[in-house]
C-alpha cells in the first residue's frame, strides 16, 4: 500500500511533463495549417498564460503550506485599477509601487487573518475575493481606467527586448525566483514543512505562522503584478480582470503535481501546468471550436492526460 502510494506521488510529479509534450506534438501535427507552430502563435501562448503562471508560482507556496488563496483574481483586478490611477497622477514609479503595494497589502491582511486569527484560509480569501472585487467596482464605479504611459505599456505590456516579449521575460524572471526560493532556500523548506506537518514544524522551531503570513504576502504581491500585466497588455485597468482566475491558478498548481493538502510540490510543474492549459485553449480556438466544444474538449483532455499518465506509469 505504502509503495503504491509512493508510485502515485511519483507519477504526479512527472505526468504533467509527459502530458504537455504529447499534447504539444498532437497540436503541432493537426494544427500545422492553422499556424499553431508559428513563432507568433507560440508567443501568443506565452503571453496568454503569463498572468496565470505568475500567480500560480506564488500559489504553489500557499498550497504547499497547507493553505489556499481564492482572492488572487480580485486582487489582480483591484491592482490593475490602483496602478492605472496612480500612473495617471504620479507616473511610472508610483504606478508600480501602488500596484504591487495593493497586492501586498491585501496579502498581508489575508495572512494575518489566517495566521493570527486562525480563520480557515478558504473563508478568509473567499471573503477577500468579494471585498477586492467590490472595491475594484467601487473606486471607479465600474469604469475602466485607460493607461497611456508609454514606459509602463512597454514594461508590462506588449513591449519586446531584442525581439523577446517582455511578458516572457517576466515569466522567466518570476519562475526562476520562485524555483530558487522553493527548492534552494530555508524559506521554501519551511513552507513545505509547515504544510507537511504543522506540529512537527513547530516542534522544530519553525515559525509556522510567520511562514503563512509570508506566503500570503507573496501571493498577494504576485496577484498585484498579474493585475499590472493585465493592465499593461490591455492598456487599461478594469474591475473584471482575473474573474475566475483563482480556479485556473489552482488547477495549474495541482496539475503540476503539488498536493492540495500541502507538504509536497514543484514550481516547474506549476509553470508547465499553466502553459499546458494555455496551449490547449489556444489549440482549441485555432481548431475553430465553439466555446461549448472548447470547454467540453478541454475537460476531456485534462482528464485523459492525467488518467493516461497514470496508466503509463503503472
Amino acid at each position, binding site marked *: *500500500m505504502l509503495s503504491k502510494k509512493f508510485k502515485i506521488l511519483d507519477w504526479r510529479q512527472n505526468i504533467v511533463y509527459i502530458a504537455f509534450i504529447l499534447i504539444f506534438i498532437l497540436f503541432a501535427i493537426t494544427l500545422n495549417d492553422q499556424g499553431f507552430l508559428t513563432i507568433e502563435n507560440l508567443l501568443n501562448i506565452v503571453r496568454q498564460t503569463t498572468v496565470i503562471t505568475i500567480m500560480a508560482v506564488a500559489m504553489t507556496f500557499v498550497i504547499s503550506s497547507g493553505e489556499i488563496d481564492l482572492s488572487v483574481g480580485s486582487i489582480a483586478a483591484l491592482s490593475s485599477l490602483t496602478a492605472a490611477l496612480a500612473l495617471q497622477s504620479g507616473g511610472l514609479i508610483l504606478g508600480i509601487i501602488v500596484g504591487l503595494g495593493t497586492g501586498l497589502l491585501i496579502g498581508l491582511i489575508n495572512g494575518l487573518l489566517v495566521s493570527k486569527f486562525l480563520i480557515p484560509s478558504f473563508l478568509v480569501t473567499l471573503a477577500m475575493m468579494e471585498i477586492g472585487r467590490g472595491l475594484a467596482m467601487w473606486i471607479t464605479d465600474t469604469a475602466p481606467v485607460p493607461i497611456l504611459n508609454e514606459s509602463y505599456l512597454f514594461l508590462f505590456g506588449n513591449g519586446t527586448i531584442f525581439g523577446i516579449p517582455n511578458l516572457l521575460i517576466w515569466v522567466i524572471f518570476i519562475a526562476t525566483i520562485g524555483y530558487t526560493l522553493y527548492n534552494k532556500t*530555508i524559506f521554501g523548506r519551511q513552507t513545505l514543512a509547515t504544510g507537511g506537518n504543522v506540529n*512537527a514544524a513547530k516542534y522544530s522551531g519553525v515559525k509556522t505562522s510567520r511562514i503563512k503570513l509570508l506566503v500570503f504576502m507573496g501571493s498577494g504581491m504576485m496577484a498585484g503584478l498579474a493585475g499590472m500585466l493585465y493592465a499593461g497588455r490591455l492598456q487599461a485597468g478594469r474591475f473584471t480582470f482575473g474573474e475566475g482566475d483563482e480556479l485556473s491558478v489552482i488547477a495549474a498548481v495541482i496539475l503540476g503535481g503539488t498536493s492540495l493538502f500541502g507538504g509536497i510540490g514543484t514550481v516547474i510543474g506549476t509553470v508547465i501546468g499553466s502553459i499546458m492549459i494555455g496551449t490547449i485553449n489556444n489549440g482549441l480556438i485555432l481548431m475553430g471550436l465553439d466555446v461549448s466544444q472548447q470547454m467540453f474538449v478541454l475537460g476531456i483532455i485534462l482528464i485523459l492526460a492525467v488518467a493516461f499518465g497514470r496508466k503509463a506509469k503503472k
Partner: protein
Amino acid sequence: MTVPFLKMNDINKSFGDAHVLQGVDFEVQQGEVHALMGGNGAGKTTLMKILAGVYNYDSGSIEIDGEKVHINEPKDANKAGVSMIFQEFSLVPKFSVAQNIFLNKEPRTKLGFINENRMMQDSKELLEEMNIKLSPETRVEDLSVGYWQMTEISKAVSNKVHILVMDEPTSTLSLSETETLFKLINNLKEKGITIIYISHRLDEIFKVCDKITVLRNGKQVATESIADTDLESVINHIVGGKLKQEFEWKERLVDYSKSPLIEIQNIQTLTKLDNVSFSLYPGEILGIAGLMGSGRTEIARALFGMDRIVEGRIFIQGQEELLTSPQLAMKKGVALVPEDRRNQGLILDHSVKSNAILSILKELTRNGIIKEQESNKLVNKYVEKLNIETDHINKTTSLLSGGNQQKVVLAKWLATNPNILILDEPTNGVDIGAKSEIIQLIREIADEGKGIIIISSEMTQLLSISDRILIVQEGTVVDTLYRSNIESERELEHAIQKV
C-alpha cells in the same frame, strides 16, 4: 549532593477540568540518565512537553544550570539546550530522512542556499555513526514505524543539546536497534549530556538509567537511585500496589492434532514475503519474532488482505480463501491490531467512541440507524476492562496519552470478537499494569478456542505468552520453536539473529 542541572518546581497543569500535573517536582543531575516512569496517563509526556515548550504550565518554575528559564515555545527550549524525541513523532512525512533530521538547521552554501550535498553527507555519517542502515534520501512516509523512530532519534541527537528527552524511544524497536540506542546513550552521557528517559520496558531502565522518578496520577511519588531499588519496588510505585497478574509463562494445552484454524501455504507478496508457510491451531498463541524489517508486519498484512498475495494459498478452517481485502478477511473472522496506531489504528480527530466502534458498526445498527445506547455501553465496557484513562468516551483520541491511544486500538479489535486475532506490537507504549492484564485477556481469548498471532519486539512478552514462536528472516519463516523448548531469552535472541 551537587546542585541539580535541571529543576522543575511545583509544576501544575490542567487541560480543562483534568488536573494532569499536580505540583510535580523533578530534578536531574548533569550527565545522568534519568528514567521517568509511570502508568499510562500519569503525566510523563505532559511534563516533558512543558520542558520542550510545547505546552505551557499553569504554575511552577523551571531552572536549568541554576538559572531560571522561561520556556514558552519550542524555540525557547532549543535555546536552553533542550531537545525531545516525541512519543507521537514530529516528522514531516513527505520529507526525506535527511530533510527531517536537518529541518530548521539546514547547512547553507556561501550564497545562503541550502547545501543539499552537505546535508546528505552529514546525514549519512550520522546514521552510520548510529549504526542505522537507512538511506538518507528515503521519504519518511515510506518507512515502517521502527525506522520512523530511528529518524526521530537521529534528529534529536543531531541537535547541540544539554538535555535530551526521550519519550518511549524503544517502543517500536527490536533488540538490536535497542542495543544500538543504548550505546548511543552511553556515548552522549560521556559527553556530559543529560538524558531523561521514558519507557514502559522495565528491563531497559535497569540497563541504562542511573536514577528513576515515578509519577502517579499527576504526582511525583518517588525518586530513587537505580542502585538502591529493584524491579518490585518500581512496579509498586507505578501501579500503587502489587501487580494483579504476573508475566510468567504458563504452559497451556494446545491440541495440535486438530485441524488448523488457518493454514498458510507458500505465500508470496510483492512487498517482501517469499514462500511463507505455517499453521495456527485453535486455542493457540503463536508468536512471531524477527529483526526490524524482517517481514513480520508483512505477514500480518497479507493475512488481513492488505497486501496482494501473488502466489500461495490460504485455508481457513479447511476452506481455501482469497483474502483480497480487509473486509473479506474480517468476514472470515480475521482481525488485525496494526503496529502503527497513529497512521493505521486510529482516526486521531475522532472520539474514543467513534474509533472503538468503527469496525463493528454493522452489529450496532438497527434499521440502518446506529444504536447509540448500545454503542456507549460497549465502549464503556472496554474503557473499564482495559483501564483506558479518558474523561469520557467522547474525548478526541489525539488528546489521550500514547498508551491509552494504544488501548483504544486494542478495544476496537477485541470488540469484533474475531476467530483469528493478529496483534502487531499490541502493547506498544502500554504501561506495565495494563500489559499484564492484556496478556491475561489474550490468554482468555485463546482459551475460548480462538487463534492468536502476536508480533512483538519485546522478548519477555513473546516468551511469556506464546505457545510456539516463528522465527522470521528476510521475508520468510526460517524456524519454528515450541515455547517449552526455549530455555532463555538469550536463546530466542540467538535464533532471531543467526544467519
